[in-house]
């Protein structure tokens, strides 16, 4: 309880102000989806906050228990519908770990390029929507969408669909990229820093943003680790825990990139750490484009499993594959009983677990701050409710 106001709340018991119970309910312009917070207010001050979820719950895990392994792949696009390819990546890794399928070099590079492009999309859209919660009348969001359109057009040419890509297969990717792919990615990578500079010039030193976001919703280090917070929210609190550096899954070990770390762990740090992370993703993309080899994009076993999904034999046993999705650690715990269907399919969703500390950060803050704290955690309800 870092809020002085609350400490001497009790001494002023004579001052019986009436508590206002508001539900920032499922239909609210800035809860990023159908998410409800029951807030007890004293004036503008938040006393208690209970998140209520489950409005978008479609029991994704039960659905997957009667789908074949390949048929689950298009459903993972719908988990965190902003970063479809990051979900595919995590699911493909988990199944490959369980079934022991090899992935050729070119496919590894394509996967890393697609994952980093998705990280760019997720972070600029997050910055845009955070500014929308702060009240900027759609200008940062539309600058972000202008850049996102270029990336989505690239995804449409490569994977076939803008957001629901369904591009990864076990053992590689579905299809090789069009010939001008490398050129277009290079053009985006060269032009993206200019856009980031323009966005920073508009936002980062804006006094209203600084005063609104600094020292708001502070997440202490110890609580962050204990509550299993991952992703930019954890790194903004000062802990350099990035799964691309810890597990070095796929071929992330080959790329040289840095991990930005904040100190105070407030909304401003979470905002600025994401902008620095975008610049690091551009470094990875730069190296990946220069080193991408030619060759087949899917292994023999993978191609055969994609053509005839019934023949994919996944041995009995369980496996847990995790990757650094833009929102945090996205893990898939899969149990197979040898039949063509997963026996148990569990998604460790970063947004869902990052919400555990929403109440701790919001107590003592103002109503307007609750909205931007929720925005800075960056949740997507498809992933929270599954």
């Amino acid at each position, binding site marked *: 309880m870092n809020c002085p106001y609350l400490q001497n709340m009790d001494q002023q018991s004579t001052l019986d102000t009436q508590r206002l119970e508001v539900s920032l309910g499922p239909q609210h312009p800035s809860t990023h989806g159908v998410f409800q917070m029951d807030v007890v207010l004293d004036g503008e001050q938040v006393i208690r906050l209970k998140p209520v979820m489950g409005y978008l719950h479609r029991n994704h895990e039960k659905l997957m228990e009667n789908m074949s392994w390949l048929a689950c792949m298009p459903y993972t696009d719908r988990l965190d519908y902003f970063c479809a390819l990051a979900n595919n990546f995590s699911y493909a890794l988990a199944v490959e770990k369980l079934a022991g399928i090899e992935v050729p070099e070119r496919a590894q590079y394509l996967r890393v390029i697609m994952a980093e492009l998705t990280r760019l999309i997720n972070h600029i859209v997050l910055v845009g929507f955070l500014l929308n919660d702060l009240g900027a009348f759609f200008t940062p969001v539309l600058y972000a969408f202008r850049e996102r359109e270029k990336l989505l057009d690239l995804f449409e040419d490569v994977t076939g669909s803008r957001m629901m890509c369904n591009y990864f297969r076990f053992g590689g990717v579905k299809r090789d990229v069009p010939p001008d792919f490398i050129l277009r990615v290079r053009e985006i990578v060269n032009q993206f820093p200019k856009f980031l500079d323009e966005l920073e010039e508009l936002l980062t030193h804006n006094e209203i943003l600084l005063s609104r976001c600094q020292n708001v919703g502070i997440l202490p280090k110890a609580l962050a680790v204990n509550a299993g917070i991952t992703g930019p929210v954890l790194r903004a609190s000062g802990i350099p825990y*990035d799964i691309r550096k810890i597990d070095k899954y796929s071929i992330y070990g080959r790329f040289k990139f840095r991990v930005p770390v904040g100190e105070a762990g407030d909304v401003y740090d979470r905002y600025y750490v994401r902008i620095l992370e975008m610049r690091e993703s551009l470094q990875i993309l730069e190296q990946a484009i220069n080193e991408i080899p030619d060759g087949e994009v899917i292994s023999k076993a993978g191609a055969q499993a994609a053509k005839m999904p019934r023949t994919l034999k996944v041995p009995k046993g369980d496996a847990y594959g995790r990757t650094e999705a833009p929102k945090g650690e996205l893990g898939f715990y899969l149990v197979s009983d040898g039949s063509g269907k997963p026996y148990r399919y569990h998604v460790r969703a970063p947004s869902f677990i990052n919400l555990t500390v929403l109440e701790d950060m919001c107590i003592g803050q103002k109503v307007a701050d609750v*909205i931007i704290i929720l925005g800075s955690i960056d949740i997507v309800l498809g992933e929270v409710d599954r």
Partner: protein
Amino acid sequence: MLNTIDQIFIKAKQIILDILSPFLPEWMMILISIFIVIVTLCVFGPVVMMYLTLLERKFIGRMQNRYGPNRCGIFGLLQPLSDGIKMFTKEDIVPQKADPFAHFLGPITVIIPSLLVFSVIPFGRNMIPSDLSIGILFFFAVASTSTLWIFTAAWGSRNKFSLLGGMRAVAQMVSYEIPMLLSIVPALLVVGSFSTVAIVNAQEGLQWFVFTPWGLVGFILFFLTGVAEVNRCPFDLPEGESEIIAGFHTEYSGMKFALFYMAEYMNAFSVSALVTTVYLGGWQGPILPSWLWFFAKTFVLISIMMWFRGTFPRMRVDQLMGFAWRGLLPLAFINLLAAALWVHLSFPLNDILSFCILTVSVLMIYVANRKVAPKKRIYKYAYE
């Protein structure tokens, strides 16, 4: 010839009066002349509002790399008309729990002050609806009642979010009313009269008050508090959409919402008009007709307000009030002192002295608020 264009509206009114005068008695003629002025204002107000909304949407649209409305009419010119029709045909929902009388009273009484206020604004050389000797006092007396009606609307709709919005509106108006009035007082001190016409006449030739040191500070102060008075960004807390849905006009739909919308834009127009009257020399201008000068200056000020809306996030309630009490109010007092000195000293000395006083005071206020001002941060990298 220039003079005829300048007085074109007065001549037109005179012609109408001359046509009617043989048929009607004397006292009826006075009523008719007043009636003509009222009709023009009541038509001019909503039309200005409609095309201000279109101007805003196209201006901000271009800022955001898009066109803005261009479907109805040639360049979207009929868009306000289609908005109006939509507002008329939309169902007017009154929440069951709402207090029907207060809910009904809200929008009507918000429109009254924004229309009344036009009566003291000098649109051109002797084109002022009613030349009151206490013009400025009338303007502020009427404009500040709008807060009361916003609160009745918020309280009447029995909705937690609009209640929060109403509370914020009252808190914001109270803390911005005082710096607003104080930023006008130097001009009155120099001119010596409340009447808006006198203020504009005192700025003969190019001696607009904005070119004097205290005038510049007064202009910035009055413009900022004017933006806050009108609930526009970055001070639009009473209708903070992202936090409290739509603030005081959450429960309004159809024509009632259109009235709130119209009141907001007419207030913006009237506040910019007053800022031009007091600090930018009203309709004073070299060659062009007087009313053209007036509308050009007001148009520039309104587009600055819209420019704010396209760029800034919203301030938080306590920061907003802190900004008023800690920043604008002390500056307004010192500005009053500087203007007094400016009036009583001769030419070279008064400008220099008031200029020094003001710059020193601005720096002192800036230093005094160091503790609150946000600091810039540097970020480390792991895995260098």
